[in-house]
């Protein structure tokens, strides 16, 4: 859906998580690198605890 959005728009994603683990069908880091190429900012609010994957995403916010 974000490919339909115009280029000048600021694309953001907010994830509200309470689970401590994720089960993914493939490699997360490839999708994360795609998101980085599309300049989408992701931010996570975790109710339970800190996770390594969330930290990776937080570093994207700072880079963009």
């Amino acid at each position, binding site marked *: 859906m974000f490919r339909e959005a115009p280029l000048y728009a600021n694309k953001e*994603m907010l*994830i509200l998580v309470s689970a401590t683990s994720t*089960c993914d069908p493939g490699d997360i880091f490839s999708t994360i690198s795609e998101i980085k190429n599309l300049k989408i900012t992701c931010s996570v609010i975790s109710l339970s605890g800190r996770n390594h994957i969330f930290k990776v995403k937080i570093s994207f*916010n700072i880079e*963009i």
Partner: protein
Amino acid sequence: MLPTENKQDIKNWDIQLISNSIEQAFETHEKSSLALLQKKAELDKVSSFQKSLNLIRYLYVAIDCSSYMKSLDYKPNRFLSTLNSLRAFIPSFFDKNPLSLLALGVMFEGFSKQITEFSQNANLHLEALKDLKIYEDKEISIQNALEVFVF
């Protein structure tokens, strides 16, 4: 006509006045420029992320609906507290950025699904929040949520 000495005195006096005023002006200018610089530094401190925000924002909110949401450390419930905070957040988001769009999605049982399409209608999102429920599976996948968002 004034004598020449008096004229020179007057001139000197004028020059002194002017120089004093210029010094004062410089001092005030320095102070004001210092204040401006301090303000600029404060603005730089605000955050690079807030500066980078455009006028039009596309925000996608993915909500976790796994059974971890049942735990009671947030009152009355993790799920209900997140729903309450979203009910407060959505109207304030459209008040602050009137040209931006918002969409909601859920994550459950390893899948992820988009509930509402991108729209500026706050009531649509608030009504969609009423239909949410907790699934009895502990697994969610963040990669699926990201891919729903991107593709």
